[in-house]
């Protein structure tokens, strides 16, 4: 049985993909990332950035979580959105649910107001997809055990030996 904390299945992927694509177009954003709040990238849309997207996702999660702690210190539950303004590039982060955050990268071709407006609607749609997804993870791991099985573990061990060699 597969024991992942989160598993994205084909239909969920396309549901997420559709919402992110629509947001990208409607907000006129450059790139959109859906990240898990532990720092893992779940999905992205838009022009591939020229930086390390994996590291970027981990920093976004840390940024968001640090701000949750700040919010709690001043008596708030969290800050549901964050905005970082740059001279040319800006980013807008919005909580989707307790486990995921949406990150929108945009430039002068759009406005914060439009990004904020479109993101709000997208977050509602994404929240519904993620809720279904988490529910499925609880009950349907068995169906996918054919992929991540003993053979997977054996091969993974060989790859680890290969990677970590003095």
């Amino acid at each position, binding site marked *: 049985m*597969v*024991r*992942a*904390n*989160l*598993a*994205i*299945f*084909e239909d*969920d*992927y*396309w549901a997420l993909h559709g919402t992110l694509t629509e947001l990208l177009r409607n907000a006129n954003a450059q790139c959109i990332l859906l990240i*898990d*709040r*532990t*720092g*893992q*990238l*779940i999905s992205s849309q838009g022009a591939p950035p020229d*930086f*390390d997207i*994996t*590291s970027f996702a*981990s*920093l976004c999660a*840390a940024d968001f*979580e*640090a701000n949750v*702690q700040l919010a709690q210190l001043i008596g708030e539950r969290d800050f549901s959105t964050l905005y970082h303004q740059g001279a040319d590039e800006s980013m807008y982060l919005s909580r989707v649910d307790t486990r995921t955050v949406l990150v929108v990268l945009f430039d002068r071709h759009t406005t914060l107001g439009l990004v904020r407006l479109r993101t709000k609607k997208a977050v509602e749609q994404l929240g519904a997809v993620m809720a279904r997804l988490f529910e499925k993870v609880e009950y349907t791991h068995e169906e*996918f055990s054919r*992929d*991540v*099985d*003993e*053979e*997977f*573990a054996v*091969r*993974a*061990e060989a*790859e*680890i*030996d290969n*990677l*970590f*060699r*003095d």
Partner: protein
Amino acid sequence: MSLINYSTREISCKVVFYGPGLGGKTTNVQYVYGRIRPETKGRLVSLATEMDRTLFFDFLPLDLGPIKGFRTRLHLYTVPGQVYYDASRRLILRGVDGIVFVADSLISRFEANVESLYNLHENLAQHDMKLENLPFAVQYNKRDLRDIIPVSDLQEELNPTRYPHFEAVATQGVGVFDTLKCVSKMVLRKLA
């Protein structure tokens, strides 16, 4: 948090280096970064102070390559060891899949090891997690120095459950890969 994306055929897992300040957590990750093939590693992110003390975390993504059609990644994190960065440590532990406890072998750091291990248990409990349910290994670092505690004594105090343990000199890379191999294998085996 282990994440399996069946559509993009990707698997990601999170390994955290925990332990007291100045124990060698960052040195472990820096050694890994310096020694593995360029195509298998991402950018090493270090949120550190001007004095090179870890402020928030270090992060290094590693790519194991395709395994049964899944691109499999390990994400290595270190926590800041200093006592007053507890909130940061708690955040980094969120969704952890495996832990390396880097203990400082120096006699003068014994109490710091004990406190850090206690703190690890406390912070895992905040996430409704228990150490005994996680892949875990202990690394006794700085074995090349004088005034160090014998491993048998460290085992008695820090590892009575007898999780896998490794002697290390992280500055020279001794024991670094052995420790990481052990925990990584446990993490991926737990998925299957």
